[in-house]
């Protein structure tokens, strides 16, 4: 091993190098970005926020379960809470976290591409995610559903709770995930540096 080493580029202060975090720092540059890393970071912030919200519901459920009879809420409220916990955790956190947060950030890096195949579709998918999340949260404000996050019929068709806005939100979130999915599939098929001449 040599005893003298040429200065490694990374030995310079990381903050001094132009990267995706400091290239532009305005709010506009983040909200209108088409950079896959920035979109990945925005998704990560959103999904972690969703995880916190779902976690709050989980804590409230656990407090209620401290005693066999009613502790802090009645049966109907408890049903709404575990439904919201499930809906938020599955559709606002778990499903977007892997492909949309980590996938958008890492897949182009892993295949040596500059960005994903459809960068503007990528940004659109993030705003569709926010729209879907807004619909779900509107349903939560309207009292939420009490069906469980699986929404099994016929009970989900009979209950008078706010099933429709939450399911509409889930459907919109599905559109967002599909947009991300198409993006990543086309990216891996066409931008992989080893197979594209």
């Amino acid at each position, binding site marked *: *091993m040599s005893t003298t080493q040429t200065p490694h580029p990374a030995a310079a202060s990381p903050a001094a190098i132009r990267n995706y975090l400091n290239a532009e720092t305005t709010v506009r540059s983040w909200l209108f970005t088409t950079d896959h890393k920035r979109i990945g970071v925005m998704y990560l912030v959103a999904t972690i926020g969703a995880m916190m919200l779902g976690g709050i519901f989980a804590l409230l459920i656990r407090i209620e379960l401290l005693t066999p009879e009613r502790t802090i809420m*009645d*049966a*109907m409220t408890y*049903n709404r809470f575990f439904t919201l916990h499930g809906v938020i955790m599955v559709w606002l956190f778990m499903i977007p976290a892997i492909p949309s947060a980590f996938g958008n950030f890492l897949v182009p890096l892993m295949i040596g591409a500059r960005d994903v195949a459809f960068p503007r579709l990528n940004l659109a998918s993030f705003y569709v995610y926010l729209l879907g999340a807004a619909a779900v949260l509107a349903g939560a404000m309207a009292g939420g559903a*009490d*069906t*469980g996050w*699986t929404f*099994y019929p*016929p*009970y989900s068709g*009979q*209950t*008078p709770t706010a099933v429709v806005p939450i399911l509409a939100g889930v459907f919109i979130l599905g559109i967002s995930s599909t947009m991300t999915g198409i993006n990543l599939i086309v990216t891996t098929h066409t931008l992989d540096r080893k197979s594209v001449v």
Partner: protein
Amino acid sequence: MKDFLEALNAFYRIALALPEQASTIAWKIDALHFFEITIMFAVAALIAVVAAFYVIRFRRRTGNFATPRVTASIHGELGLFGGLLGLFILFWVIGFRQFTEMGLPPEDALDVYVTAKQWMWKFSYPEGPASVGVLYVPAGRPIRLNLTSRDVIHSFFVPEFRIKRDAVPGTYTSIWFEALHPGRYPILCTEFCGTGHSIMRGAVVVLRAEEYDAWITGTAPAPPPRPTPLEPAIETPGQLEDRGRLVEIGREVAARHGCTGCHTLDGSRHIGPTWLGLFHRSERLENGERIFVNEAYITRSMMDPQAEIVAGFPPVMPSYQGQITPAETAAIIELMKSLSQPIRNP
């Protein structure tokens, strides 16, 4: 060897906090579970040990960045792949045999029809009697349950028998079991069905063969039910002044139609307003109006419950229109009257 296996079974059952094995299929289902969980624990421990070993043995030492390119031998790969595949196929074979056994009741199985309804279990027998909440069966004979639901999806679950089957509206599903010895085992609902899902309890009362024959032929009454802590308690008569037969009929009707699943008779707060002191009370409704609880209001509440909801209670009561006779509504009203009267000295 048999003693050793029985001791092993008892050890696992207690270690995993499982209830007793009270049916013929229970120990088999447990055995597959114990076998699988042991292998999984062993494999997980092996992986942890090997991973720890590799992390230490092949940690990066200073100046050594490159690792040799390692490819596994074809025999190693095939052995690992074949071993794991064989293991999972073994799990599947045992499980599938149990699955078919649970799906094919013996020829001489007794039929019972189970109707699940928010939030109660109803049972009816081909020989005639019907029962709410309590399933009477003889010990030592196979019983086939034909399950359906009146409203939403429920699921019939008896932990001690290790049996579970969904009760689906619009169709019949079926499960069979054979109870080993007399006893009383709780029934739980295990498919979310609304506000009363967690209190939708029942009991399987396993009788000796003679007791069961006496009950089903009507020779002897059913053994008096002693509710376990899990079942919703029904008020026993004798504490309140006896106003004649209609009040007793009212209690039976209230139990049969599941009223006591939501309305208590002793003043404790539950899903619906308690009936203690309800009659001739001035109640405040959700819309702020006040109504006087009389025979008309009670009957309207049974026929169109969503129209006048008492403030502070959820709008979950189903309509009994067409399901309850005028005589039964009268009996329930008499029961409510008896719960509002002061106790007179005889």
